[in-house]
């Protein structure tokens, strides 16, 4: 076993830390929030140029053919600065599904790798909560030259900036994954912001025409592919969460040395030292748990799913401890929008509740 970065991973991390560190200042992120769609289009191009969007894309499709450990290295750096660009949805979730699709998706994949296509999963439906595998109300039925897709989707993460959606629907052969372009006839979007300043959409699909080439997977294959893609996405979220915790350790320990109260740097108070120690322990354990989950990703689905669920519970609870205490250590400043820790807090909340929250993961891990 080797927990140290390979040379390639070291290069990836160095470039990521450099670019993200330079680019994603708190001020920049706060300014981005006030733009129409919330994402940094020029940075996204840089993501593409640095090869980040191509990590999981197979070499034969023009990608790097990398591994989830590489993604986790990068995701940690993204988490360090609460970077909320649609990386997970596009470069992990969609890339996994497209690479495993029954119909060749070379053009879309090429566009994804180039930073042009951004692809969001449209799965949850009204009244549902993390319904991993339930039958869909959205329906794909034969019609016209091919098929017709209708239904309603909620909380499509990063929906406003997506060029395509991967829509889950109930088709003739069971669960079906359908690639739909944004702006296609019959696709209506209602956009909103989330508390971490990322965006999401509700989608209404009204008789959207679908050709055979847009069908990515059906039946058991669709189920398996969706499940794998979601688990990879969950681990990517967990890696960002660990990155966020690690950044909070630095932010808080620096603050404790600088902030004076009762005539001393507050870091002299044993009670606060012990809070920092608790945060350190939680973060260290969380990173270990991330490695565990990564080590199980290639194993059979049941092993993988349980490991990912276990890791998500553990890492999310550690993140709660760390992000809560980070605010507490900052006193009143911690609950302002002007300090990093409040952004980490909100980002951690969003990371926890995407693709299954603690309760969902706990039930899944206990099954």
């Amino acid at each position: 076993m080797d927990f140290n970065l390979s040379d390639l991973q070291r290069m990836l991390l160095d470039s990521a830390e450099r670019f993200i560190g330079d680019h994603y200042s708190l001020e920049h992120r706060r300014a981005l929030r006030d733009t129409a769609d919330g994402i940094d289009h020029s940075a996204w191009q840089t993501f593409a140029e640095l090869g980040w969007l191509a990590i999981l894309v197979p070499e034969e499709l023009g990608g790097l053919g990398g591994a989830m450990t590489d993604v986790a290295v990068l995701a940690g750096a993204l988490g360090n600065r609460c970077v909320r660009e649609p990386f997970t949805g596009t470069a992990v979730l969609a890339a996994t599904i497209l690479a495993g699709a029954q119909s060749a998706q070379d053009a879309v994949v090429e566009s994804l790798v180039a930073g042009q296509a951004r692809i969001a999963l449209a799965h949850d439906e009204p009244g549902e909560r993390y319904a991993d595998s339930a039958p869909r109300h959205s329906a794909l039925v034969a019609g016209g030259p091919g098929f017709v897709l209708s239904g309603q989707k909620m909380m499509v993460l990063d929906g406003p900036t997506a060029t395509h959606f991967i829509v889950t629907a109930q088709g003739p052969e069971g669960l079906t994954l359908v690639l739909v372009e944004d702006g296609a006839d019959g696709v209506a979007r209602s956009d909103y912001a989330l508390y971490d300043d990322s965006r999401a959409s509700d989608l209404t699909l009204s008789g959207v025409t679908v050709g055979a080439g847009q069908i990515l997977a059906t039946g058991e294959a669709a189920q398996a592919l969706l499940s794998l893609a979601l688990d990879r996405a969950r681990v990517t979220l967990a890696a960002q969460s660990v990155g966020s915790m690690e950044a909070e350790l630095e932010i808080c320990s620096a603050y404790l040395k600088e902030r004076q109260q009762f005539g001393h740097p507050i870091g002299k108070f044993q009670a606060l030292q012990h809070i920092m120690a608790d945060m350190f322990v939680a973060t260290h354990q969380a990173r270990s748990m991330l490695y565990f989950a990564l080590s199980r990703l290639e194993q059979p689905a049941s092993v993988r799913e349980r490991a990912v669920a276990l890791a998500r519970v553990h890492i999310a609870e550690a993140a709660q401890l760390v992000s809560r205490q980070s605010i507490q250590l900052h006193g009143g400043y911690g609950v302002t929008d002007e300090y990093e820790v409040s952004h980490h807090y909100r980002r951690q909340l969003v990371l926890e509740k995407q693709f299954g929250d603690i309760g969902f993961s706990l039930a899944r891990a206990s099954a």
Partner: protein
Amino acid sequence: MDLAIDRELDDFRAMVREAIAEMLPPRIAELQKAHGGINSGHAETLEWTRILNERGWSVPHWPAEYGGTGWSPMQLYVFNDEASKAWAPDTCWGATHMCGPVIYTFGSDAQKETFLTAFREGRYFLAQGFSEPGNGSDLARLRTAARREGDRYIVNGQKIWTGGAFASEWGFFLVRTNPDVKPQAGISFLMIKLDSPGVTIRRIPQINGDADLCEVFLDNVEVPAENLIGEEGMGWTYAKFLLDHERTTSSFIFYNKRELARAKALAAAELIDGKPAAEHPEFRSRITRLEAEVTALEWSVLRELANEEFKYDRTAAASTLKVVGSRLQQAVTELQVDLLGPRALRFHAFEPEDRVDAGPLWPTHAEGRTANALIARASTIYGGTLQVQKGIISKLAFGL
């Protein structure tokens, strides 16, 4: 020992409940319910104060000569409980619960006439200027200076966490009038009109999208000497007086009861895998444990109100209420967030002009819950952090 509630209180409760139902405009109740933080909007707070004042109930806890009702502590408790349940906002806390008692206890007749009447009648919002950027939990080190020049003070300095200052006409401030004595002895209690030249107010954007807390910059602000409350140099004593004055407030018991009830309603309404969240064992256990903690807190408050003989320093008990009350504000609002699941992630703007209808897929009960939970992180910080409270307890209860 008599642990039963007086029958007479039940009648009183019925009476105030009915009166509040009659008086409270549904519009204000709905705003309070949606907004649901500690306070509704400032205008609505004042409107509700004026309505209460018409019935003589806007400052029920004050001495009768200043407009109080003469209710017993238990009656006050019942009144506040009922008002909270009905989604009435509080009155302006700084005015009716902090500055008011200082003025009727230590102020001159003229000050009583000027300020107490205005507070009672809800004429304006009042801001509290205690904390400074350099001293969160360490009030004695405050640096905002008021230099006496003839019949006025020249005030220079900076205050922070001044809630609602942008919407306030006046503020009550702790200022240093004498830099040459030991820190606690040089502090005075000053009323400052916030439209005075030299006062600049900056709203601080908060974690939850609101910006109620402010920074107040005081740059050569001239304040008439008659705005000094009580004696010069006694500000520290008055501040301690007002903090001691309300031993049970920091329990946020009414808030905690109301928000737990709201969480239970959410648990009944939100479905997970087609079943109400209330039937899911994890949520059920969480709710039960929180209900136990809220119940214990309520009985801790009752012990204080009933003046239980207490072996330890009473301030240690008051800090206990604060420790538990603040922990509960966080736990109960986080429970609400978790009950909403992914729907809790949607941002809802605070300013009325920025609010949008979330559309048919979004239940109104989702709005405001996360904003509340986010700002509840401050409950273990303001008014003496959790760590400060624990220090008080270990010192006063055990002499450590």
